[in-house]
């Protein structure tokens, strides 16, 4: 029963994601107004920022699952944590890419060290790439699961610490859109942004479920094969 439900959930989720992404792209290009300073190029904002926030969400979810693994010994939490972080690295790479393109267009440079968010993302990117090195250098088993979970937890602690460190030492040119007084943009822009963010999170959820389903299938197949040919 639950297996059948899980089978049907993935196509439904994928469908919803497609619709949401379609709506968000339509909104980005046809509904949201042109930015007064930056014109068309500002529209990359609707991809860049949701990508970045989704990457943080992935890392956060991965760390949460890691905590569940260590704390409650939840079966499968290790795999879920790994898949979330894997997706996070992909979204993170896209964030670096879109951020770099945007930086080139609006500041004229591909990379700027005086830019908190980019540097922070680079640090996290390096950190989570090392996560994969760790995972693939240890033989699968409970020891690996524990170790990876601990490292994933270090990651979420590193995020605020690095943010503080980088912010301490820099002058900023990164536009700060979300201040304590609420979002600094027009209503229609904010609406577009929210839809784009939800679409991106849905995309993550779909990829997450898809990869998880694939990995689980893999494990079951291996188990069956071992049963058949001992």
């Amino acid at each position, binding site marked *: 029963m639950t297996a059948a439900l899980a089978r049907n959930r993935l196509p439904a989720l994928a469908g919803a994601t497609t619709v949401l992404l379609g709506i968000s792209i339509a909104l980005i290009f046809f509904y949201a107004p042109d930015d007064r300073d930056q014109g068309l190029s500002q529209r990359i904002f609707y991809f860049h920022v949701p990508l970045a926030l989704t990457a943080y969400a992935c890392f956060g979810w991965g760390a949460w699952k890691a905590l569940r693994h260590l704390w409650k010994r939840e079966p499968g939490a290790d795999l879920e944590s790994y898949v979330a972080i894997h997706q996070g690295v992909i979204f993170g790479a896209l964030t670096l890419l879109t951020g770099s393109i945007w930086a080139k267009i609006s500041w004229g440079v591909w990379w700027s060290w005086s830019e908190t968010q980019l540097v922070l993302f680079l640090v996290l990117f390096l950190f989570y790439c090392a996560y994969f*090195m*760790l995972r693939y250098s240890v033989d699968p088993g409970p020891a690996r699961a524990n170790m990876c979970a601990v490292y994933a937890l270090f990651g979420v602690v590193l995020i605020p610490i690095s943010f503080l460190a980088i912010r301490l030492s820099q002058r900023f040119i990164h536009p700060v859109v979300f201040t304590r007084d609420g979002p600094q943009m027009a209503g229609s822009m904010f609406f577009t942004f929210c839809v784009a963010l939800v679409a991106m999170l849905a995309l993550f959820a779909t990829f997450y479920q898809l990869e998880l389903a694939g990995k689980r299938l893999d494990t079951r197949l291996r188990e069956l094969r071992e049963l058949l040919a001992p």
Partner: protein
Amino acid sequence: MSYAADVVALARKDLLLELRAKETLPAMLLFVLAALTIFHFAIPTDTSDVATLGLLWIAIVFTALLGLTRAFVPEREQGTMDALVLATRDRSAIWLAKSVAVFAFLGLAELIALPAFSLFFDPVDARTVAAVVLADIGICAVGTLTGAMAVAGRARELILPLLFLPLAIPVIVGGVGASAGAGGRYLLFLVLYDAVFALLAWASFEYVVAET
């Protein structure tokens, strides 16, 4: 035996081993002197004081890395780790003792490195020394945990820098900031880093060495 006695016994074992074998500390000393010599040739002669202070921090982090790479080698070669994990004691004591030992080695290496740096480049002030001590605590706390992870894998020495360096970036930011002039808040930041990561490492070490 209490927790403190465990830590003292394990740290004493590491220091004794080093005293007899003399493997890690001489290597760290030579490495840090060689690194400073290389820096002298790598940078232009009219480089500012602030830039050379950055080199001091690079030397410190890489020297620490050298020591950390060796930290769990005796445990691995003699199979001591299995015995330690089997003992019905609090396993975080293993981490604390190893951190203390690495801290001692690193401190001794810096006792030579800091005067050498003052001799070769610019004199270091009290604030830099304070930052170095604070940074050492963080480096040893985080480095010992990642060191324990690294020896469990196949890649071993290869993987430790990859695991450790991203975590050490805030230490570099804090250390360079403190020694380059804008003191107080960077020192506070280093204290925060030490507290947060030491606590996390202390709480999670158990899972790194446990086989279940």
